[in-house]
């Protein structure tokens, strides 16, 4: 099938991810949505790689996964600490600083 469709899918996933970030309160879920966005990008990269017939896209995808993993490490660390000190993983609860 026409690989361009994969792009549409990627865009869709990206949008879903973005809206997830905006709509969900739980930090974990928010973070997962971000991951989803990253993977959407990955998909797009791979699709383009296929279209262009060169490997750069795929290579980048690999890198992205690694980065995502790293992000998970840091991210979860932070979220967990917050959770332990606040007993809540809600993003909105963390709003001491404003104005």
């Amino acid at each position, binding site marked *: 099938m026409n690989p361009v469709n994969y792009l549409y899918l990627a865009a869709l996933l990206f949008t879903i991810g*973005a809206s997830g970030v*905006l709509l969900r309160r739980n930090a974990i879920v*928010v973070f997962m949505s971000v991951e989803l966005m990253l993977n959407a990008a990955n998909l797009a990269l791979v699709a383009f790689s296929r279209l262009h017939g060169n490997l750069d896209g795929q290579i980048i995808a690999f890198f992205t996964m690694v980065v995502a993993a790293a992000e998970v490490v840091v991210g979860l660390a932070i979220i967990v600490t917050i959770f332990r000190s606040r007993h809540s993983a809600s*993003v*909105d609860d*963390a709003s001491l600083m*404003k*104005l």
Partner: protein
Amino acid sequence: METLIGLLVAAPLLGAAVLLCGGRRLDRTGHWIGTALAAASFLLGAVLFADMLGREAGDRTLSQHLFSWIPVGGFQADVAFRLDQLSMTFVLLITGVGTLIHVYSIGYMEHDERRRRFFGYLNLFLAAMLLLVLADNYLLLYAGWEGVGLASYLLIGFWQHKPSAATAAKKAFIVNRVGDIGLSIAIMIMFTTFGTFAFSPVLESVGETGEGTATAIGLMLLLAACGKSAQVPLQSWLGDAMEGPTPVSALIHAATMVTAGVYLIVRSGAIFDAAPTAQTAVVTVGAVTLLFGAIVGCAKDDIKKVLAGSTMSQIGYMVLAAGLGPIGYAFAIMHLVTHGFFKAGLFLGAGSVMHGMNDEVDMRRYGGLRKYMPITFATFGLGYLAIIGFPGLSGFFSKDKIIEAAFAKGGAEGWILGGAALLGAALTAFYMTRVMLMTFFGEERWRNAPTPSPKEPSVEPAAETGGEYEVPHPHESPKSMTVPMIVLAFGSVFAGGLFSWGEAFVHWLEPVVPFEHGHPPVSALTVTAATVVALLIGVGAAWLQYGRKPVPALAPRGSLLTRAARRDLLQDDFNHVVLVKPGEYLTRGLVYLDHKVVDGAVNGTAAAVGGLSGRSRRIQNGYARSYAVSMLGGAAVLVAATLLMRAV
């Protein structure tokens, strides 16, 4: 010889400097120094006068260029003097009378602890006045002009602890400033028109410019003259100026300074000759003022204010004469000189009376003083005869000539002016006789305490009589005061005759002040007769009013005119309504405006930005997700904008 001219000014200036900076250590000797320097400058004047007589009429004009004052581009103002017959006349008058009054003040101010400063101011005045009449260009004249203004300010307000005095001084200065606008604008026009403002070039080339310019300059000069010489409409300050010590009134507000306006007009004769309109204005002002002053003089009970009104009116005569052109100039000056003598004498007399009466100025509290102060009575009497123009005395000659000239103006104008002058003569006779009768004749109204006066707006508070009334012990004044009075009396008796002896005075002035014989429609003799008649009417009326029946110790309410006249014909009320009040409202309004609008705009802007800030910071609500929204939105806008850019 030229070099002496500068010294004329320098001497009194030095005196002023020494006395004002000298400090207390000069308190004992100060008045002698002041008098000596005044006398010195009089002697210098005499020497120069002798020298001047020594040369024939053609080249009697001396001039001295001291240094270049303000040289900027085409604007070249020099400190240079010009001593010709006209200025010489003034020099002698100023220094002569000035010296006398210095002498007089030694006695008069004896008990004032600030006498030193008083003499300092007097010297300052002499210097400024001499600068005024000796200047050879209008700017330097302007300097002297303001200088005398300053001196008069200081001297009127000499007793500054009296609020009335301080106010009067301020008023005098400010009204004069209004006049000064005229002088400075006149100078500006001269500079723009002729590129200079020195006397000779301007006066010589005034013919080359249009009548419009000449008229403009003339009117501006007239404005200046009105301010300095207390002519309508800028006359209001002179009456209040009587707050100053009497010698000051005699010297500055009778003999010399107030006549500066006449000097200015006569000096600028050429300009007025080239501007008939301006001349008409001058004579109108003169005529109006001479009546105005006379009427005011008739109503006042304060002896000095009567004399002030009379001064106003006499200067009105001079201005009138000066406005008549060549047929009047010389007589204006002549009257100025004689007036200098007898008016100074009268003031000194008044001062002497007050001196003996605990500084009481209300004539209704005088009466029958002739036997207590004979010399004063005699000198004052002679002055009186002179001013009303009693045949044979100074005033007679000078005033009569002016009246003739007024008729000689010709046409309806001539009749009106002449009539005004005659009427003035009658009024003069009336109010001066009134003064004589109320002061030296009749019963001694000062013996018993004044009954508390009813609400009478006209009667200004006389000199503060502290506590309960103690009966004054009228007495003759010390020599230092009487001698000057006697000298001046001589002047007021003989000066006129001397001057008119074969028109000596006219011819003396002629080289600088053009002269031609006026031809009145009726014979000169008729005019003279008319004058005498007018004078007799005046005297008679006064005798009927104040000689026959006793003078009430309290002023009767009097007719509307009388009351108006007591209030100086409502001049102050007029100024108050037309100028002062609106001015106050204006300033208050502006202060408010400046605070609320001009400044408010600035503060408003600041406040607005602050408010904007306060509102917009709420966007930062602390919720990470709303931040994300703004990011997403931003991204969307960014993308959209980029695409849009490409689209268009």
